[in-house]
């Protein structure tokens, strides 16, 4: 067993808009092990980004609130820290990179300025030393001619180069955990391959763990050890990536895997898809959140929310029928059904 460095327990996040309360994250728990990567996947609106930003307490305080749970890092509960203490955690122990590299850099400052700002905010270095460190960081993330590039503005960089700069900033203080929120979604395929390779390299060099948020299962297979499938603000399945790929348990995960188009997909047969759309989280969900889209749903699914259980060691699932004694038979073509949307 490797030791876990970050433990999220029963995290609850609510968004308030007028009198409507949306439960964006509803009881999410996971543990991040040292030198391991965890991938969080799910459709848009499933709460994966909110979970990640909540770890750093970066969700907007005016509308959102963490209403319950614990986030344990090195024996401390991050939710109980003061803002001043939290500021030391951000960037220093846990860093984050975001989806869109063109909006996450400040256009009016040079890349060097933004790097030096981060370094000096956390470390007692002179300007000169910080600049030296900034150049080293740019070199580390594979930016050619860093001495020159450091004086350039973000608009002079391409998308892939900007994401490299973002990674350099995130790594400025040798964090042990890096949260990457869809780091390659805005990039082209050939550049995506470069960035993923870079992240893998850096992880080995710097001894980090990565929390990778993505809707692209391909990225998870390539980068991660553990996978967390989220649906409607909850974890519906979590396992080692190989286990999940070879033996997915939750019907939603089956649907996700089946709707991926792979090279063996027969181009004359229709594609599998999950009918309907995710539930509105501003209403109380009584039963299983997936019940309206599940081809296997039964009475109990409408009335009782399934608990997250572990039928086999290290592989958890939230479904009434995936117990040790009872298993759902995976029907072929369960997700290939007409094209009409239920209204």
């Amino acid at each position, binding site marked *: 067993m490797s030791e876990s460095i970050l433990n999220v327990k029963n995290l609850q996040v609510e968004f308030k808009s007028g009198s409507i309360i949306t439960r964006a994250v509803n009881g999410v728990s996971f543990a991040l092990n040292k030198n391991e990567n965890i991938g969080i996947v799910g*459709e848009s609106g499933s709460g994966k980004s909110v979970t990640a930003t909540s770890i750093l307490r970066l969700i907007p305080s005016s509308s959102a609130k963490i209403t319950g749970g614990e986030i344990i890092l090195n024996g401390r509960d991050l939710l109980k820290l003061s803002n001043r203490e939290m500021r030391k955690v951000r960037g220093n122990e846990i860093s984050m990179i975001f989806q869109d590299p063109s909006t996450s850099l400040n256009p009016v400052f040079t890349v060097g300025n933004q790097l030096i700002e981060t370094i000096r905010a956390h470390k007692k270095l002179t300007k000169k030393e910080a600049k030296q460190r900034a150049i080293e960081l740019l070199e580390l993330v594979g930016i050619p001619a860093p001495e020159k590039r450091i004086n350039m503005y973000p608009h002079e960089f*391409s998308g892939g180069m900007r994401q490299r700069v973002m990674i350099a900033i995130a790594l400025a203080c040798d964090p042990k955990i890096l949260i990457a929120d869809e780091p390659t979604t805005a990039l082209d395929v*050939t550049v995506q*391959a470069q960035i993923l390779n870079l992240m893998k390299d850096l992880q080995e060099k710097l001894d980090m763990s990565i929390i990778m948020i993505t809707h692209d299962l391909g990225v998870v297979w390539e980068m991660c050890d553990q996978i967390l499938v989220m649906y409607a603000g909850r974890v519906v399945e979590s396992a080692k990536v190989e286990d999940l790929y070879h033996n997915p348990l939750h019907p939603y995960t089956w649907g996700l895997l089946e709707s991926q*188009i792979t*090279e063996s997909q027969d181009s004359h047969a229709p*594609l599998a898809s*999950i009918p309907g759309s995710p539930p509105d989280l501003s209403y109380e969900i009584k039963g299983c959140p997936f019940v309206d889209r599940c081809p296997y749903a039964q009475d109990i699914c409408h009335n009782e929310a399934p608990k997250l259980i572990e039928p086999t060691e290290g592989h958890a699932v939230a479904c009434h029928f995936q117990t040790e004694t009872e298993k759902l038979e995976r029907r072929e073509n369960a997700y290939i059904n007409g094209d009409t949307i239920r*209204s």
Partner: protein
Amino acid sequence: MPTSMETLLEVKNLKKHFPVSSSIPFKKSNQSVKAVDGVNFNVYSGETLGVVGESGCGKSTMARLINQLIKPTDGVVTFKNKNLVEMDAEMLRSTRKKIQMVFQDPYASLDPRLKVGQLIAEPLVIHKVETKESRRKRVEELLEIVGLNKRFADRYPHEFSGGQRQRINIARALALNPELIICDEPVSALDVSVQAQVINLLKQLQDQFQLTYIFISHDLNVVRYMCDRIAVMYLGKIVEIGTYEEIYSNPQHPYTKALFSAIPKKNPFEQKERIILKGTVPSPLNPPSGCHFHERCPVAMDICKAKAPKAITTENTHQASCHLVH
């Protein structure tokens, strides 16, 4: 699958150079971005032609050039034996009924202040097709064709999810019984599960109405599933074109080889060796000399810097532009 090899659309030496304003005020600049730089291809009746390439390679500009949303700098676009580039406005408008578009972002392409019914009826109104009463019937019929409830005609776009909006877009594109639909990244903004629904719908409509598609995408698996033939674009040029089988089993251009090596395998844990390209797509403002790809090419030779390669036919319909291809 194309039933006959009847040419529906022919594009010859199509070019679009966007002028760039000079950094010095009042000084004329003679620089231009060569977004599309001499593209040739045919589209046959009933087939789906996929166009793949990275952002900035000119895919979307090419789509807009085909139906003359922007005027080309040079070149000929022939649709059913008529040259669209030289047509007068009125003639163009009536010809364009048969060429429709579906755009990438279903949130930006529907006017939020119009009801779904009005949105779908808009092409009918513009082209003065049918009467007011029969238009409503046509709208309801179209909604049902794309798998939506006909009552949705009285709702506004914000009430719908991304996948449903894309269906509304498709219904609007179908309103005038087009022959060619240009789909510009129609599923890129959608989640995987919904993506599959929309792709299934597009395929089913193609069979039902004998449509021809030009399908622009950067997702090679989607393209493989949808398309009969593929054109690979790089920096304003088509570097390789052919049927999917030809390109997939035997890619000729080094760029195509790199792109296709990134396709996920059926079992992702037996990932094959990936070709990782150096650098990024160069600026079309100042493209590299000779072959535009030579700076990133793993097998570049001296001649590649000096001379731009010509398109060479290797098999029946398979063409590639590379000095290494004979």
